[in-house]
Every structure is written in structure tokens, then in C-alpha cells.
């Protein structure tokens, strides 16, 4: 679907809906979407579509290994894109890249120098921070926190953390608890391994 100039393409919105956009594009597209009602609506409808597809996928007969099929399709799509880039004339590839870059042309020319300056500033700040904290990070006390993350469930205290990695996908159920009297906090996540069917429950606690 063609979309107006200055707005992210449907392809980018679809990747954002699936959490598959790179961090920089995720930041840019997310920033645009937060301020653009039209794109936000498009993003929501793409998310809804993903959920419906997930439901339909579960209703397929067991003889069809959907996960395997999906992985193969994804691999084939990537392979196709890569093969296309190899065989396509260089000019056509450059034109396509240019087309993608043009989506944000309205403010891209303004952003480029700003981003460059910001990157330098972030680098200098980061380097200063790392030098100043090297070897004494534990001294900085922070809030105790338990959280689900993209990788797993985490206990965090100041600069230290312990992360239990997800076991084969996102957890189906989570349980969170904070004792008013004991000051404790805990988070529990339940997984079922798609291949072995093994059930595993992870739990992080602060005492």
C-alpha cells in the first residue's frame, strides 16, 4: 500500500507491530506514530491483524507444523531479498534505498546534523560516566525492582542484576508480588517448551 510522503511505509509499520524493526528505526517510527493519528490507527490495525493470524494459526491441524512453516517462510523471504539485492542492478538497489530514506525527507535533512551532534554528545557523556563509575558501580544504591524484559525476568538492585532467560518464548503467565510488611518483591513466569513440552517456572525475589 502506498502511503503519503513524510509518513513511514506500511512495511515499516508492520515491522514495528511485530517488534522486528531495528532500534534506530523503531525510535524514529515510534516518535512519528506517537504524534500521527493516521499512522497510529494503521499500527493498531496491523497489531490486531497479527493477533488474529496467531489465533488462526493455532486452529491449523497438528499435522501442519506452523512454527516450522513460519520459520521457513521467513528464511525464504530473507533469502529472496538478499538474492534480489545480489542480482538487481546496483542502481535499482540504490533507488530502493533512497526511496526508503525519502519517507522522512521532510524532517530527515534537519535530523541528520542534529543526530550527528547528539551521537557525539552521548558518546562523550557515556565515556565520562564509564570512567567515573569504573570499579565502584556497587556503591550506587538504587531501587529494588523485578521486571519482565525482552530476554527474561530480572531482579535489579543498583548496578547489579540477575536475569533468568526466557525458556523457549514468552511466558504464558506471570505473577508479581510485593509484601507490604516484609518489603519483599517477587516475579514469577511460567513457560512451556514448544519442542519438549517441559514446563518450567522461573522466579526472582528480593528479600
Amino acid at each position: 500500500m502506498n502511503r503519503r510522503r513524510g509518513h513511514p511505509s506500511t512495511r515499516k509499520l508492520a515491522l514495528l507491530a511485530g517488534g522486528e524493526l531495528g532500534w534506530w528505526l523503531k525510535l524514529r517510527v515510534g516518535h512519528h506514530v506517537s504524534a500521527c493519528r493516521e499512522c497510529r490507527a494503521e499500527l493498531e490495525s496491523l497489531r490486531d491483524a497479527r493477533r488474529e493470524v496467531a489465533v488462526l494459526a493455532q486452529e491449523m491441524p497438528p499435522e501442519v507444523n506452523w512454527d516450522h512453516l513460519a520459520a521457513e517462510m521467513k528464511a525464504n523471504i530473507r533469502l529472496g531479498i538478499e538474492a534480489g539485492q545480489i542480482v538487481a542492478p546496483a542502481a535499482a538497489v540504490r533507488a530502493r534505498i533512497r526511496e526508503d530514506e525519502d519517507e522522512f525527507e521532510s524532517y530527515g535533512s534537519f535530523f541528520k546534523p542534529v543526530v550527528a551532534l547528539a551521537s557525539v554528545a552521548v558518546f562523550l557523556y557515556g565515556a565520562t560516566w564509564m570512567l567515573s563509575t569504573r570499579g565502584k558501580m556497587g556503591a550506587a544504591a538504587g531501587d529494588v525492582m523485578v521486571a519482565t524484559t525482552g530476554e527474561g525476568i530480572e531482579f535489579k538492585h543498583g548496578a547489579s542484576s540477575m536475569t533468568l532467560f526466557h525458556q523457549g518464548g514468552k511466558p504464558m503467565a506471570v505473577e508479581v508480588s510485593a509484601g507490604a510488611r516484609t518489603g519483599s518483591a517477587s516475579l514469577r513466569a511460567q513457560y512451556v517448551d514448544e519442542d519438549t513440552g517441559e514446563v518450567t517456572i522461573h522466579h526472582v525475589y528480593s528479600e
Partner: protein
Amino acid sequence: MSTANRFVLAAVAAMAGTVLAHAQVKISLPDDSPVTLVTADWGDTKTSERGGALVVELRSVMSLRNTSGKRVRGLTMLVASQEVTPGGRASVTRPSLDVAPGENFPVKIDLRLLRPLQKGTGPLVEITLDGVLFDDLSFYGPNRFESRRALTAWELEAQRDRRWFRQVLERDGPDGLRRECVASLARQAETQRLDVQLARGQRVTAEPMRKLDLAFLRLPDAPVDAIGGAALVSSGLATVTHVDVVNHSDRAVRSVEIGWMLRDSRGRDYSAGAMPAGINLAPKARSQVRQDGQLKFTEIGGGPVSIDSMTAFVSQVEFGDGSLWVPARLALNDAVLRKAMSPSGEEQRLTSIYRKRGMQALLEELKRF
């Protein structure tokens, strides 16, 4: 704790010349432990330096043997690192097991520790046993982290769901069981999941918090009900100030688990997990459950959830004598409760067998125990 089964394993793997120290792992099992360590593979364990911090990625598969005379139904191993996260603990539980005496079974531990450099020299990680549950619901272990209650509740849910699948098979045959599996898989796919974060203590937020009266669901045979309560909410944030509960039964209650369901401003329902709480509740008495800390809910890979309403229900009760109540399977026939309650691990396991290996494999599994 005694140390007959003590191993100190130095697991070191290099990451492009950034090896800093030994990632020592100590596994301690009591002398009279009903499980023993057969092997522990630490092959993919890595240590690296990132900025001013040491990163340890511990990837291990332990093989344990049931040396007791009973079948093991579940087990919890504790993982602690006093060096890295004093006051912090993790545990890995394997429920829904059926391990005969003399049989081996795997326990996988994949974790990452991040700690400041140049701190301490002791073992980074200590792994101990917190509890083992047997098929007669007897329990072994120090139970420092309520493993007995949790393992027993999961086993009761597992028994309930196995019984339910067998009943469906007897009543409607393999076709009926297939329909049940497909419906369950569809429910699992429909379940809206959230990322959740809990920070202890009150936080200052950019948006003002508004008071939200909680809504309640009643499970048909629940001995304890949630009847009142409130939360303070803003975009994606919630602090549950209190939940009022009443004990309808003639038995004292020592703990309850309160399940949560969130509805966002677009009318989508999310199962937002559960909150266990210790409480001393006499027969027919009322009390309040309080939670300290602020919950933050975000959509998976998305932004904060705009909380429109919150619904609470009692999903588990532990009586004074240690026995437990879990919801009956028939309660899940209610469409709203089905949305609110996540399927048990056993239901997921059984439907996963159907999806991956087909009906015949599921029928064989249901005959096993």
C-alpha cells in the same frame, strides 16, 4: 547445610580476550536429599567485561536422579549470588514431572549476572534445593521460598486438568478431545500478554494518579472472595492500595492469591498475573490485603497500557493446615473467567503434545499417570 553432594565447578569461557575471572558455581544438596546430581554441563557459560561491570552468562543443564522410593512430581532449585545480588534470589521450578525412582531428569538454568568489577572472590552462584514434591503430595526440603505451597498448587491444577481431558475423552471420544485441544490452543493464542515491572516504594510520576475502584469476579466454589478495594492508576502504572477479602469457610486461612485482569481504554482485556499474599484470616472473618510498590504494565514490544479498569478475583487459597483450594475446572467454562485465568502449565503441556505430536501421542500421555 551438609555437603555430601557438593561440587565446586569452575566454568570459564573466553569472549574475545575479555575473560576476567572464574565464574564459580557451587551446587549443594543435603545428605538425605531425594535427588542427586548426576552431571552438570556448563559448556556455554561465558564471562565478559562490559564497561565497569562483569557479565556472567551461566548456561547449564543439570541431570538429577530420583533416589527416593516415590515418584517425583515437581522440584524447585534456588539460585543465589551473594556476591552479585545480595538480597536477591532466583529459583527454577520443574512442575508437571513424573519421575520414577532411579530415573534421571534435566533441569536447565540459563541466567545472566551483572555486577561491578573487583568485588569479592567467593563463588558467584550457589545452587541449592528448596523442595521436592512427590506423587502422594508429601514434600521434602527447607521450603525457604514457599515451594511447598506453589508445587502443591501446580500439582493440584495438573491433576484437575488431566482429569478433565480424560473426562472429555470418555464422554466425547478422540474427536471431542481434539475440539477441546483446539479451543484451548485458541484461548492461549488469544491471551493478551503484558510486560510487567514492580518497583518497591512510591514513585513520582509525570501524570497525576487517579483512584480506581476495583471490580471483582467470584469463582463459584471459592472459600474466600475479594469484595472491595482500590488502586491508584495513571498511564501504564498502578498501585493497589488495598483489597478487602472475606473468608466464607469454617477454616482458618493463611494465604491467598489474587488474580488480576486489566481492561485498556480500547476495551481489550489482559490477564495481568496474580499476587500471592500471606494473611491470617479466621473463619468467616474479613481482612485487607495490601501491596507495597508500583506496577508498570506495557504491551509486549509496545507502549504503556492505558488502564481503564482492574478486576480482581481470588485464584488460590491456602488454609491454616497447609491444604489448598484451587478453582474447579468447571469455573473455566465461564467466558469472563477464561479470559482472566491463564491456562495451567499442565494444560499447556498436554495441548503442546497434541499440537506437536498429534492425537495418538496425547492419548498415550493421558494413559501414563
